[in-house]
């Protein structure tokens, strides 16, 4: 090998330097574009499905926004999982959007609020008057305390729609079986028994995802009062995990499986499969959320109805997902203007006429009879101050815990008392920082 001259050594060093700098740049690249607000572009992220009522409404809102402000909307379609899992990293960088849809609750929007990643928008709420358009129970999930506990006094998000969990009944299947839609819990159980007697598993359920956990919480709510919800969700008092509400829920859920109201192989079923089993008529009853409503309107080839859970003033539900403005957003003013457009009656009516539950629509604008029925049922829940949020909200990761523990219950690998104890231990651990 030829001996290196001083010049060639210098060149080699320079080459190494360039390669090293390139490597460091590659390794350290965060994808941040170093955006600065130009006042002309609104970077917007949401994760609503293309055909959903919300996506249709927001497509229209984008058009109106661009016409009225002259600014361009740079929209990126995200998945729920994508935003859920990576939001804190993205929002901590200069790649943050100006406006983003985000899941509500302590472990999600509350977490971002407590860490300062999303902006306090209280001034904008006052300026635009959004508080006047939102019922008090809808405001709970939009306002957080310093610790990220919902129901606080600082606004961190704005919801455009509501949602709740009720009971879908296949009216045709009921008629065929000679049964009436139940109005009380006793009648509900009679109907379940009657279907089982006819060889039909009445409840569509999914133990691998949220539906089973939601039924469990709904059963607890049927025995609870508002204080139980405040204790469970807002940590006002310790939750008694061997108390009457939780014990009833866990015992009854196990009973539902034992009596054949729910299929014995429910533990590996996903939410989609449960919904499809209702759509294809194989299960006549489905306890789930209003987010299915639009799909059932389009796909269920039979007459059906959605009612709140019988004999229960409390229902799972809340505002829908929130618009949040990242603290690092470059164009906050544009973000506020966009939110304001989504609250207009004409945009809200699009949600209402496509199977969604608008929060600020003019009732006269809702022309679709099926949508009118949904909104009337939702308003009934609101009038009872019945929105009681979701069981996994109190602690980060509690969703997985509920799925896992209820799988243990329905597969018979653990009894109800152990299930309650395990749930309680995880709840205590996950909420220790907030209580």
């Amino acid at each position: 090998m030829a001996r290196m001259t001083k010049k060639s050594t210098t060149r080699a060093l320079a080459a190494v330097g360039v390669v090293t700098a390139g490597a460091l740049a590659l390794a350290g690249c965060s994808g941040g574009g170093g955006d600065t607000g130009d006042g002309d572009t609104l970077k917007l992220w949401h994760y609503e499905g293309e055909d959903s009522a919300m996506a249709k409404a927001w497509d229209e809102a984008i058009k109106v926004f661009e016409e009225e402000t002259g600014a361009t909307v740079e929209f990126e379609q995200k998945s729920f999982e994508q935003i859920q899992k990576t939001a804190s990293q993205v929002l901590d960088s200069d790649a943050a959007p100006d406006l983003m849809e985000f899941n509500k609750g302590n472990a999600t929007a509350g977490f971002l609020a407590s860490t300062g990643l999303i902006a306090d928008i209280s001034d904008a709420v006052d300026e635009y008057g959004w508080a006047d358009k939102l019922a008090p129970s809808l405001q709970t999930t939009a306002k957080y305390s310093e610790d990220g506990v919902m129901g606080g006094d600082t606004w961190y998000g704005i919801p455009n729609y509501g949602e709740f969990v009720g009971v879908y009944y296949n009216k045709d299947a009921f008629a065929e079986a000679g049964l009436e839609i139940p109005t009380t819990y006793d009648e509900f159980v009679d109907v379940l028994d009657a279907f089982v007697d006819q060889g039909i598993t009445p409840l569509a359920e999914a133990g691998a995802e949220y539906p089973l956990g939601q039924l469990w919480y709904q059963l607890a709510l049927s025995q609870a009062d508002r204080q139980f919800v405040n204790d469970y969700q807002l940590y006002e008092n310790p939750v008694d995990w061997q108390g009457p509400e939780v014990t009833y829920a866990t015992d009854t859920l196990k009973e539902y499986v034992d009596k054949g109201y729910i299929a014995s192989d429910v533990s590996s079923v996903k939410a989609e499969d449960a919904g499809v089993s209702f759509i294809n008529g194989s299960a006549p009853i489905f306890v789930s959320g209003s987010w299915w409503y639009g799909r059932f309107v389009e796909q269920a080839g039979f007459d059906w109805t959605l009612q709140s859970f019988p004999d229960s003033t409390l229902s799972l539900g809340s505002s829908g997902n929130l618009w949040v403005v990242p603290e690092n957003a470059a164009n906050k003013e544009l973000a506020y203007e966009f939110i304001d457009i989504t609250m207009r009656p004409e945009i809200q009516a699009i949600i209402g006429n496509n199977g969604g539950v608008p929060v600020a629509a003019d009732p006269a604008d809702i022309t679709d009879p099926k949508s009118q029925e949904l909104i009337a049922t939702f308003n009934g829940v609101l009038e009872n101050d019945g929105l009681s949020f979701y069981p996994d909200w109190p602690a980060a990761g509690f969703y997985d815990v509920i799925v896992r523990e209820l799988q243990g219950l329905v597969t018979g690998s653990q009894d109800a008392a152990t299930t309650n104890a395990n749930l309680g231990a995880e709840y205590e651990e996950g909420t220790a920082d907030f209580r």
Partner: protein
Amino acid sequence: MSVITRAERGARTKLPPEEPSIPQRKGGTAGYWLYLLPGFVLLLVIVVIPLVFNVYLTFTKWRGVGAPDFIGLENWFTIFTDEDFWTSFTNSVWMVLAMVVIPTTVGLMVAALLFDVVGRKFGGKVGSFLRATYYLPQILPIAVAGIVIGWMFRPGETGSVNQMLAVFGIPAYDWLGQMPSALLVLMGVLVWVQIGYPVVVFMAALQRVDPELYEAAELDGANWYQRFTAITLSIIRPEVFVVTLTCTIAALKVFGPVYIITQGGPAGATLVPAYYAYSEFFTKRNIGYGATIATVLTVLVVVVSIIFIRVQNSAERKERAGL
């Protein structure tokens, strides 16, 4: 203590003469280090710094944003009493069975059969075609394979496996919702995915075998099993080490199939360390504890690798010594 010189050691163990080394330029090897520098920098940035940071995080409580809180050894104390952690590592043993023991054993037999029997009787093209079919699952993205497997093993009458069993009058079963079937299905998928890898590596290794060795053994009256153990196994031993090592590391780190097919369920029965660490990191935002699980996993992988490499080196030394 007596000192054994290099020449004496060489004479004792009958080492072959050393290969001629690359001539060193006058002035030492300093110039070469310049060319290694980019690699070292990448190693530092991509491996060493994150690893050190990960170990640091094991002594903290952190939600991923803001400054971590230093909590000393709390995460390390917790891990020893955490049932889920031990379940996940127990399941790793099953993963090793599914990704190492079964595929390597079966792969060895299949490769030897394809090379020694199929290749000789039906020609190389048939052997190559069969090899490709074994390798096919390795090409398939695990996300796609996992979703298809999930459909096949759906509960009730909607899953194709239950539909096939129904033909024989066997009632529907909840394969992914019960134990031990969920673990067995997962293991079956891993065996199916994994088996092509050893087959391809072993068949490539068998190209090194002189066909005359087999012929000579046959003339001496050796049957297929005797030829397999005396010739095949002996010659491809280095590849067996490599396959076993890489597959063991993959088995300890397995994540994708669990994430797609069972998500650790039912009731945590198919939890593995990588998925557990992931759920602590991203679902619970319990970063410090997730880092602790990841660190234990890393240590385990490193220890296993060292053991394998030492055993391999020892075996090679013995072989070169003619022992």
